[in-house]
């Protein structure tokens, strides 16, 4: 058990004993992998772990726990998604306690039938801009040990997106895993006839992925939850990164970096020359 884990557990124990929070979202071991866990009793804090396998974005659960006072273990990107959720009025900053953990990047999750062997730093972690959450009530320093990259080959730069999209099973795992894809009425179903039919599998994948990319533009915090959840390993975060680059170039805006910075589409001003 690392120092960071010890520190994390003591913070969570303190929070639960003082009844500051009802439950804490964290990570626990599940066999040899890590899964999210909800800790609600002080004696359960021994379950909590923190290492480089904790790739889940726990902010995804915050919206369903809106009415409760929750603590959350947040990496840098998780913190950014909390900022985005607060900015979009989906969660109340006052009702969540953010336990920020310093993150050195996470491993790409193991997938059965995956082509690469060995653990390797996730692609999106190479583009990471903040290792510590921009919002934090508690800070656990010296997080998980820096992951040793067993595969020195940088991210595979497959750019044939059209054939990558064709692999898609339309399982909607990317939608479910994304902390910011929360609409109760999804826009791909709001049209009559449906913009994208959920059951016609090899079809309409172009519209599905481009629509999702457009809806994530300027909001995606590049936490990689979609990419990690994807059963066919489409590197979606790279696509959303390109659109965030567009926002950075045109508006100098990066999502999730500060609570006071309004998203450009919200503060769109009239004006400019023809």
């Amino acid at each position: 058990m690392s120092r960071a884990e010890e520190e994390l557990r003591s913070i969570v124990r303190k929070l639960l004993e003082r009844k500051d929070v009802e439950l804490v979202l964290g990570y626990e071991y599940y066999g040899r992998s890590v899964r999210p866990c909800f800790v609600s009793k002080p004696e359960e804090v021994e379950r909590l772990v923190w290492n480089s396998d904790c790739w889940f974005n726990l902010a995804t659960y915050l919206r369903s726990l809106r009415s409760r006072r929750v603590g959350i273990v947040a990496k840098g990107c998780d913190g950014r998604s909390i900022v985005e959720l607060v900015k979009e009025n989906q969660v109340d900053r006052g009702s969540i306690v953010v336990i920020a953990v310093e993150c050195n990047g996470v491993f790409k999750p193991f997938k059965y039938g995956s082509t690469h062997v060995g653990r390797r730093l996730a692609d999106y972690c190479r583009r990471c801009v903040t290792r510590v959450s921009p919002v934090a009530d508690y800070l656990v320093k010296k997080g998980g040990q820096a992951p040793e990259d067993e595969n020195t080959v940088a991210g595979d730069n497959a750019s044939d997106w059209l054939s990558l999209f064709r692999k898609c099973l339309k399982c909607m795992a990317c939608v479910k895993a994304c902390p910011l894809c929360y609409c109760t009425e999804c826009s791909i179903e709001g049209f009559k006839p449906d913009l994208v039919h959920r059951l016609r599998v090899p079809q309409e994948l172009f519209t599905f992925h481009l629509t999702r990319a457009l809806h994530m533009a300027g909001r995606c915090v590049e936490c990689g939850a979609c990419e990690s959840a994807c059963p066919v390993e489409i590197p979606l975060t790279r696509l959303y990164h390109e659109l965030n680059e567009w926002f950075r170039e045109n508006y100098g805006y990066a999502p999730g970096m500060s609570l006071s910075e309004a998203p450009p589409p919200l503060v769109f001003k009239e004006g400019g020359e023809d």
Partner: protein
Amino acid sequence: MSWKPRVIVFTCWCSSSGVDQAGFEGFTYPPNVLTVRVPCSAVINPSLIVKAFEKGADAVLVTACRPSELRRVAPSRVTEARVSLLRRLLRTIGVEEDRLRILWISSNEGSLFSREVSRILGEVERLGPLNIGGSMVEQG
């Protein structure tokens, strides 16, 4: 060569009268240009532009009012920003970004519309058909 590009033009209310004006004034534009009239260019959902590409459009044109002629500038600017974002997205996934254009057309600019559309059609013809890939396109 028998292939002719299929072009979808989303026209806002004002520029659709510009398109009509082209007819009144006797200017022609190719028959493989289909216009879809919408109340304002800012209501065009970018997903529908994407859908048009998937359904077999080789190019999509958005015509909007000139920002300088509008009392409120925002709608055209919103459309401009969306189209610019969508062009970036198309470039990223490897589709030529010139397949999506925005044109400023006022209600009396029929000749401009006819001239520009013919020019763009020629460029799209040089780009060739858009190949999004067999099974991704809905059949029938």
